[in-house]
């Protein structure tokens, strides 16, 4: 689904990005992350994902192969990496992913993405 406000060159405010819309603290809205996961749209521009699918994450997320930011177009990665972040974000590319909802006993309380065919 198209959001009218997509990533534009030079835009670095989180609320310009689809899944971050209305999120005051720079963290994407959980509801919109779920929507990106299931409706298979890009977290940055809100348009249908392509092939391959890109995820950005910290080195810890890359090591665990579990990402918290929504899936992205290859071309939308830079808009997300330009957001103010405490640590630099690495990009991984995959053909597919599993969407894992948090369980009550999980150390990680957030829904996460597990790429299943890294490229």
């Amino acid at each position, binding site marked *: *689904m*198209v*959001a*009218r406000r997509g990533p534009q060159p030079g835009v670095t405010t989180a609320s310009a990005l*689809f899944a971050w*819309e*209305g*999120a005051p603290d720079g963290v994407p*809205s*959980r*509801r*919109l*992350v*779920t*929507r990106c996961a*299931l*409706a*298979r*749209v890009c977290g940055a521009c*809100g348009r*249908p*994902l*392509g*092939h*391959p*699918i890109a995820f950005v994450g910290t080195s810890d997320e890359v090591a665990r192969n579990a990402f918290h930011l929504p899936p992205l177009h290859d071309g939308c990665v830079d808009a997300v990496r330009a957001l103010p972040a405490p640590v630099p974000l690495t990009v991984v590319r995959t*053909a*597919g*992913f*599993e*969407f*894992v*909802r*948090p*369980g*009550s*006993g999980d150390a990680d309380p957030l829904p996460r993405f597990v790429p*299943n*065919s890294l*490229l």
Partner: protein
Amino acid sequence: MAISDVQEYCHLTEADVEAIGRELDALRERVERSRGAKDAAYIRRVIRAQRWMAASARIGMIVAAPLDKRYRRPLQAASAVSLGLAKILENMEIGHNVMHGQWDWMNDPEIHSSTWEWDTGQPAEQWKHSHNYIHHQFTNVLGYDNDIGYGVLRMAREQRWTPANLGQPVYNALLATLFQWGVALHDLDLDAIRHGKKDPEEMRRQLAQIVRKGRHQLVKDYVLYPALTGPRWKETIRANVAANLMRNVWAYLIIFCGHFPDGALHFTEDELEDETRAEWYLRQILGTANFEGGPLLHLMSGNLGYQIEHHLFPDLVSNRYAEIAPEVRALCEKYELPYTTGPLHRQYGQVLRTIHKLTLPNRMTKDDRPPTGEGVTIEQHQRVRHEDTHQRRTELGAWSRAAGRSRA
């Protein structure tokens, strides 16, 4: 009402719910680990078979055109049936499952949720929103899940009765025969439009997309292929109408049997708050119904006879649902949870009974499914959803498609 108050699993302790969650996680992980070449070969085989069926149907009609009536008519009829079956296979086992992302792991750019466009009136992009997200995330949640009656039928007692509901048997027949066009309009959210909650710009964009896709479908079936059969174009149009009708009625039947038999419960949006993965699994089991049948029936219904397994694991490859179904069922028995299933005719019989009963006000009929709660109406929840998904961002003086609040 919290999800733990739903009567069907009141008897479970928190530890039980978590144990069920762990067992289902293990099932999922097992299939994910063993997914590979055999599964890829399966979907490629189904796609190949489907394309041969469609191609031989189109060619059959062209070849039949110059023949004598005696040979032409049976060949046209066989072609129409072959085309109808090809459309069914494409929509149910291929398109629906590919668009869930079930086959993305194969890394085949053609058989991928991002690129698949299916042989029906609804644009893939809108299907992935209305079905993958709205229906699968808010399964049977009153006011959220637009699949409850498709905005046309009164399928829940919590929906207010109006005299217009007296026409339900007629609307139902129309919905079945025109199903692809009903689905095509589905993501527009007619209810939100009626209440002035739809972003007009987004509505125009979606309408343009539907018109483009619809025109493509109509030109293909009713202009291009008929033209290829020359003077027999009228007969080709008739055959293509028959094929589309076959697919429409079948898709309607299978989809209605997934959530409207008596055992499938409705929920309220309170039950979504802070839902854990295990509770999400339970809501999917309780809101969904299977039907029984042989391998061919399951193939032609896109393995949606395993609707419970599909709702538990919507992105797990469909050819493996049959393998895990006995284990899901055993798990439900162990924890005394309803696992709603039955032969297709019985499940649809219950659907029909609900459609006919709900033509009348509630006081005139008896409820066949466990009640959702005292005084619950679908309208009060629709209001919440409108606020949620069609929120007006006054600070920008514009509409927004996305919710500002985080509720998922």
